């Protein structure tokens, strides 16, 4: 994007002083201190002390979310008051795009970790390739993915007899989450989730078209459907976690398979919730306040970019976590 020339110059809106940054900081830091203390109570605590950690967390979080609400409301109001130049809007767009890029990198780490443990660590632990001598430590471990038996399980005597002191206890699952065969395909939740999420990408696009054609009904309807599909996805995901924990014995502690499975799908699910929440807000703005015009609807656009991003991540997940 080249710099604009003189004739198109509009004054760039630099806001007055603002309390929002300070409040957001106070809220966020309080929440995280509360959360850290809560985790510490759980893992290191004596059980007798009452540190009010969850209370601190909740108060901080509420304050933080409240601040964000005011913050976004302010920017929306400024925009509707016509204070934002085209250039400022472009700054917002750049900001959102790079924010999404940072999220891509965040997911990349977890995919990278999955790749590394599946393709390198597993075989090494089983004494293949560069890990030739590891058979001395894990003599009975043989590797396959999904890892149903952890190296610890393979040691006779389990956790007590393992060659490394002080680990936790990692017991492999009874069943894995991958493709259960054609006959059970109807019960295979990830497939339905894929269908749901992919179609939601289309519905949000249709809503966007509606907005651009100034067809408000179309916008409201299809955006609403998108939000609904998001909720459906999250519900199925919760169902799947329930199944995994209760029926499959697949837990966070089920060794690296459970670890990567829950961390990848979990972070994705969290991002779906965020994206869905963003879309919900846009839907409320569109339906109740009549926001957005055919050529000025950055809030909607940013949320839909985010939604597409979440969708792409799911495709990666479906491939690498469930199918391959």
């Amino acid at each position, binding site marked *: 994007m080249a710099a604009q020339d003189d004739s198109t110059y509009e004054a760039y809106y630099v806001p007055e002083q603002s309390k929002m940054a300070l409040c957001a900081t106070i809220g966020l830091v309080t929440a995280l201190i509360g959360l850290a203390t809560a985790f510490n109570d759980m893992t290191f605590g004596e059980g007798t002390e009452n540190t009010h950690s969850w209370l601190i967390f909740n108060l901080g979080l509420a304050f933080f979310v409240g601040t964000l609400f005011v913050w976004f409301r302010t920017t929306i109001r400024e925009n509707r008051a016509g204070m934002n130049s085209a250039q400022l809007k472009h700054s917002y767009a750049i900001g959102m795009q790079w924010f999404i890029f940072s999220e891509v990198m965040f997911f990349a780490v977890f995919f990278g970790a999955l790749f590394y443990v599946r393709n390198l660590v597993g075989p090494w632990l089983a004494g293949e390739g560069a890990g030739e001598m*590891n058979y*001395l430590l894990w003599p009975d471990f043989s590797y396959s993915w999904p890892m149903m038996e952890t*190296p610890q399980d393979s040691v006779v005597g389990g*956790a*007590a007899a393992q*060659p*490394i*002191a*002080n680990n936790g*206890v990692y017991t492999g699952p009874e069943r894995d989450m991958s493709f259960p065969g054609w006959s059970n395909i109807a019960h295979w939740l990830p497939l339905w989730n894929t269908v749901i999420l992919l179609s939601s990408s289309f519905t949000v696009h249709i809503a966007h078209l509606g907005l651009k054609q100034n067809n408000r009904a179309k916008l409201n309807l299809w955006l609403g459907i998108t939000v609904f599909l998001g909720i459906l996805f999250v519900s199925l995901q919760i169902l799947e976690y329930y199944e995994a924990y209760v029926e499959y014995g697949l837990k966070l502690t089920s060794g690296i398979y459970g670890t990567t499975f829950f961390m990848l799908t979990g972070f994705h699910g969290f991002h779906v919730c965020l994206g869905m929440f963003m879309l919900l807000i846009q839907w409320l703005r569109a339906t109740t306040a009549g926001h957005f015009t055919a050529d000025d609807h950055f809030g909607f656009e940013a949320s839909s970019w985010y939604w597409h991003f979440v969708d792409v991540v799911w495709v990666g997940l479906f491939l690498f976590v469930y199918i391959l």
Partner: protein
Amino acid sequence: MHSQAKRLLKLALSPVLLLLSFLSTGVWAEEAPRWQVNMSPGVTEVGAKIYDLHMTVIWICVVIGVVVFAIMFYSILAHRKSPDREPAQFHESTTVEIAWTVIPFIILVVMAFPATTTLIDIYNTDDAEMDILITGYQWKWKYEYINPEGENVKFFSNLRTGKTEIYNEDDKGEHYLLEVDEPMVIPVNTKVRFLVTANDVIHSWWVPALAVKKDAIPGFINEAWTEVNQLGVYRGQCAELCGRDHGFMPIVVNVVEREEYDNWLAEKAADAVKIKELMAQEFTLDELAARGKDVYMRSCVACHGVNGEGGVGKAIAGSAVATGDIATHLEITINGVPGTAMQAFGGQLNDVDLAAVVTYQRNAFGNNMGDKVQPIDVYQFKQGQ
């Protein structure tokens, strides 16, 4: 909280303490090679190759440095501002840009050759005549001589320097911090393969004179090798931050003639047999407590303190475990506490020492349980698992 606060108070006083300690400790033992400024080629072929590579690269860098800085200092001297000097205004030349991209590249290629061949050499662990499994523990090394036809010989190697030397109450000996109770012994002119792993956190086994440094990763076995061509005692240290006493887990390798090595190994094997005999014996409370004190001071004191007051570990004095049921006490000592620094000592200490140390803990530091644990109890406890 309190110990931290005390420490900070001490720090506030540190300038005074520093001065005092400087005045008080005057002499430090014999002269080690105190002015050594360079890497040593060591006593192996690989070490010599690394040393050559190191020197080659240093000299290349020195030459580049001399040329580059000569030009810089020349302009600093010759091109300073003066009334009759108009600065030149040139600011581009594709030719020189290409030249100073290509020339360093060529220099790097020249360096890469010896580096590659040396590396390939280091990675070639084939044809080793013997294997030693090295396991890093917080804060000691275990050496296990792998014997394909029988029992392995294994032992721990602990720091020998006493606390009084470390805390400046005694003069520091010649090998301050670089001495152990039982060194590793290997034969000269023999290719020895090291299998390096760890039991808790990452350590790194480093003996500069052997040019071996390999990280000890818990759960994985790394390979390294050496072939020493000179008799002697070679010293090194753990080279990966591994917690509090990272600076206090030295390595000593004793390189001896083949024959001497064989004798040493046979002796070690005989010791192991003796321990087996001891295991069948009954001991009195006093015998156990005396032996247990030794074991405690060697293996437990680092975390549980001289007076059982605790530190990294929980206090033993008055501990519910040490004054409670024997089975739990054995269970914790043998299997450790997963997820904490408390290791599983079942595999580290023999049954006699385990019995002794548990007995000692139950009867020391004001814990007056009066009961005792015999080696056979430990044996049965282990069997019962």
